[in-house]
């Protein structure tokens, strides 16, 4: 019985040592073998599918072939290769064991350590003065004035290029002579800073055919960012009437309360599935063997002295 246990323990130790060696290479004190390109120890990265799912696929950059990443599926089978220098991915045809035509990989690219080599001089110039671009590192400009990143993003956040995606959209349709007083009145009012205001002729290519009803000149629309109409004037509003309508539409509007029909409901098991998929196959084999031993232990007979 001791021999049986020793053999089983030895087999598990061999399997574990082999998995460790495959991942990290032989220990420093051991003779270092020479590996063919694309074999031997490697650095791995999880390969996420485009929608963020982790299905157990991995990218591997072998020490024997830096700058080339091999894509392996959840079973460890090689399915393609990506080369950093040319930034191209080639699928591996399992039947012929040859690489096919370069194409988009089925997963996100690995995080790269090396930048691709690119030629410095362009062969065609369509309108950039390269002597005056990119000479000063990263710079930000607001209205032609150089500012630092913090200032630029504060300007961005405080009402210039801000995250104003939550503001109501006010549109005045009609002839320029009639829309301008209405739009100007809205902009001049305090509510003007809280909404986006635009004015168009109904025949403008940017708005014709989108479904706006513009029977009067002017016609006032107030919409939520996703398009839901909160107000449409039925008669041509005066500037004061337009301002009143916009204020009423904007009062009590809370962008955070907008329904999000794309959010899923119910129990979300995608995280659990991703975790299970990230566990390599040999770990399942070792765990299965241990479970078998626990459930079906070998018969232990008492030994009489």
């Amino acid at each position, binding site marked *: 019985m001791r021999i049986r246990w020793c053999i089983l323990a030895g087999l598990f130790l061999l399997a574990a040592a082999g998995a460790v060696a495959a991942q990290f290479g032989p220990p420093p004190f051991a003779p270092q073998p020479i590996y063919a390109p694309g074999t031997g120890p490697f650095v791995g990265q999880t390969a996420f599918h*485009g929608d963020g799912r982790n299905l157990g696929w991995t990218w591997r950059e072998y020490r024997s072939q830096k700058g080339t990443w091999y894509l392996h599926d959840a079973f460890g089978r090689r399915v393609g*290769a990506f080369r950093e220098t040319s930034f191209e991915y080639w699928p591996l045809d399992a039947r012929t064991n040859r690489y096919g*035509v370069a194409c988009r990989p089925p997963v996100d690219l690995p995080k790269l350590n090396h930048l691709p080599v690119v030629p410095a001089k362009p062969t065609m110039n369509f*309108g950039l003065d390269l002597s005056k*671009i990119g000479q000063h590192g990263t710079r930000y400009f607001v*209205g032609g004035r150089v500012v630092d990143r913090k200032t630029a993003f504060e300007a961005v956040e405080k009402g210039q290029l801000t995250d104003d995606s939550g503001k109501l959209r006010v549109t005045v349709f009609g002839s320029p002579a009639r829309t301008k007083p209405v739009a100007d009145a809205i902009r001049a009012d305090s509510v003007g800073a809280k909404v986006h205001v635009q004015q168009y002729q109904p025949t403008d290519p940017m708005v014709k055919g989108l479904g706006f009803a513009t029977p009067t000149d002017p016609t006032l629309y107030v919409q939520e960012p996703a*398009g839901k109409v909160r107000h449409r004037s039925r008669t041509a509003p005066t500037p004061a009437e337009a301002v009143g309508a916009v204020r009423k539409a904007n009062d009590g509007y809370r962008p955070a309360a907008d329904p999000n029909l794309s959010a899923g409901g119910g129990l979300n098991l995608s995280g659990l599935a991703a975790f299970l998929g990230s566990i390599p196959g040999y770990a399942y084999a070792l765990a299965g063997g241990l479970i078998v031993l626990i459930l079906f232990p070998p018969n232990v007979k008492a030994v009489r002295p």
Partner: protein
Amino acid sequence: MTRNTIARKALLCLAVACGLLSLRGHDTGPFPGDEACPSLGASVGGTTGPGGVQIQCDLPAELQKKNISSNGLGCCVFRSADHAGHWQNIPALYGFPEWMVANKISGGGYPSKLQSLTEKIAADRGLPVPLLVQVEGAKDPEFLKLAHKTGRMTLVTYSKSPSGRYANSRIAHMINLAHADGQGCAALDNNFVASDPSVGPEKTYEWMTWDEFFKISNPDGYWAAVYMDPPPPPPPVN
């Protein structure tokens, strides 16, 4: 358990282990060489991108115009500003390259020239000067993503096509981004506009990932600009 039984079970375990190891991929084929072949990661298409995403800035085809030159120098920067002007209803910017030709202003753009000519064209037309925010030498997409989240259209440099346009050559160009989100972006190149019959609406937009945008199109960082005028209204729904 007899020794033979133990030996048989050990051999069975070894056989199973060998079988599992054989599932690992073993590549023996020749690896593609370094010959220049076009990267086919990005794709050229219409307003629907990979995964069914709808383009954010669907500029009507009749408003998309090709790049021209003024005094022998290209006006890609100013055509891109023209497109952004139409998208955001900024009449001061309409026909920017044609105004430059009419006023004998040479093409070739850079950040301070875009600012000064924006002020000049607006003053010339008696219209308000649109506020312009620019970044030069940026190496992350946050500026572009924020601009597009707010519904605006950006202008951005572009030095190589990830889908193989321009015979895979390196170029000096400015285009518009018609889409920018967490997954990637879509380029509206003023050399490949929908109003051009040889291009058409189904081959206008070049969809790419951010990796491709940075590693291929802007390996040294990008210059981008965005006008602060409001975005257009969305289609109405009840």
